[in-house]
């Protein structure tokens, strides 16, 4: 158990450390095109080979990790908080509020997001830096990703609302706000954790797909999403295992986060 923890921690530390030290580990940067060595195999010079445009894959993985590891959890946190707030409050307040919130959630789920996102892109200037573009995208994902979790949370919060301990806490004179944040929200933790952990990989992939709408990270900046997109045509990747590195890294990092934090929980609980 103990060893496992250390191992997962090491994975995380290496991923974070390496991406933080990208400037030193890959001094040529993620955009440099080695045009005479495109789609190259791993070599001493390019540890993970180069991509279609001759850019060093190792550098792109490091910088992509930095972007995604920074922004995806932040967006996941945002959507989780929104889900807690909207779903949790709806269930906690019950009655009309619950019905209104669930109607809004249904509306959100049924909205033609594609068109809304297209509108967002239309309102954004064309000359935005790649980082702003990816920032806006993750922000949007965070703002839109709460709906499904909110429904589950609404049901959980409703059951918490009628529990003895909430009545007892009310009788102790707690305000509605304190009741909600101190007594209701902690009881929604399992759902909130699930929402958070599921959102991270989902957002990372969604970010890449939003490239279709001119959102998401813009060239030449890499993100895990844009790197994973290369795996779309698996046929070509089969014989070139080093191209799986971004995927393996994503799985490892998300898993290690999850394991470390759940152990934390156990230790605390």
């Amino acid at each position, binding site marked *: 158990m103990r060893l496992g923890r250390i191992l997962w921690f090491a994975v995380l530390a290496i991923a974070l450390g390496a991406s933080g030290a990208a400037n030193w580990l890959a001094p040529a940067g993620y955009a440099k095109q080695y045009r005479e060595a495109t789609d190259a195999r791993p070599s001493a010079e390019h540890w993970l080979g180069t991509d279609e445009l001759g850019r060093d894959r190792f550098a792109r993985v490091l910088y992509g990790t930095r972007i995604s590891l920074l922004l995806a959890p932040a967006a996941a946190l945002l959507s989780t908080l929104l889900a807690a707030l909207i779903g949790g409050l709806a269930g906690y307040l019950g009655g009309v509020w619950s019905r209104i919130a669930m109607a809004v959630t249904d509306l959100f789920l049924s909205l033609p997001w594609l068109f809304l996102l297209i509108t967002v892109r239309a309102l954004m200037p064309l000359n935005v830096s790649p980082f702003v573009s990816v920032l806006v995208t993750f922000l949007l994902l965070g703002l839109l990703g709460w709906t499904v979790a909110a429904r589950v949370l609404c049901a959980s919060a409703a059951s918490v609302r009628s529990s003895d301990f909430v009545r*007892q806490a009310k009788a102790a*004179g707690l305000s509605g706000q304190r009741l909600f944040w101190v*007594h209701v929200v902690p009881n929604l933790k399992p759902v909130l954790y699930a929402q958070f952990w599921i959102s991270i990989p989902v957002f990372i992939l969604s970010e890449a797909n939003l490239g279709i709408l001119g959102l998401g990270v813009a060239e030449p900046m890499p993100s895990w999403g844009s790197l994973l997109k290369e795996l779309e045509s698996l046929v070509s990747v089969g014989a070139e295992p080093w191209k799986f590195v971004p995927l393996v890294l994503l799985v490892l990092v998300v898993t290690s986060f999850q394991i470390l934090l759940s152990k934390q929980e156990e230790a605390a609980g």
Partner: protein
Amino acid sequence: MNTETQNGALLSANLTVRYTGKPPVLRDVELEIREGEVLGLVGQSGSGKSTLAMAILGLLEKKRARAEGSIQFRNLDLLNLSERELRSLRGRTISLVLQSPLSSLNPALKIRTQLKEAWRAHAAGTGADCTNAIRACLRSVSLPDGEEFLRKYPSQMSVGQAQRVLIAMAVMHRPALLIADEATSALDVITQSEILELFRSLNRSTGTAILYISHDLASVAGICDRIAILHEGQIVECGATEQIFANPQHDYTRKLMAALPRVLPADTSPARKSEAAAAR
């Protein structure tokens, strides 16, 4: 009703409560609680005991329940108070202990957090003040006040300990009235008697009046100064404990007496008068 003097009345209620679309749960219930006394409210489940407790705390669900009449508490009518005013009373002046200690504590929170929240609801002060207050009230219910205990979750305690924590929370602000709603019915016999003794001693040491709600006449008998019998939404009889036991007036009271185990002094079922002496 009897003609006891109004002097020393902490709370006097005249109350009808109905849930929408149903016959009233409480009908013209008249009840008086005097300063510093322990009043037992006895009735079988469904008789409206808990509704009465909730009405006093202003915790009836407003959407579904309507309370009419008045609940005079000192010089306030609780039914006319705003939610804000009620909240400042709850836990500080009137507090509640519920039946099932484990489900009445939030399973996701440490004891310290729950006590802290209860304290902060009515007190401002530093963290140290808060800790001191928490420790003091834990001691007052004979619980350990160490860090180790404060870090526990409800699931890591015995039922008796949990109930003491709830009581500690309820007496933390020295309330004038403590409502114990079936507070001992989920406990085993020994723990039950310990908790009853705790209530009694808190009552004596702090002067907190206790409304002790139970379906169990026997447990009430030990600690109550007076007893009110609630039957089908009405108080059918109310009087000093000895008087009720010695001379129950109402049919229903007599039935309750008859159901008691015979360990009490003999001749407790004398009443033959079958006229329904209306409590009013």
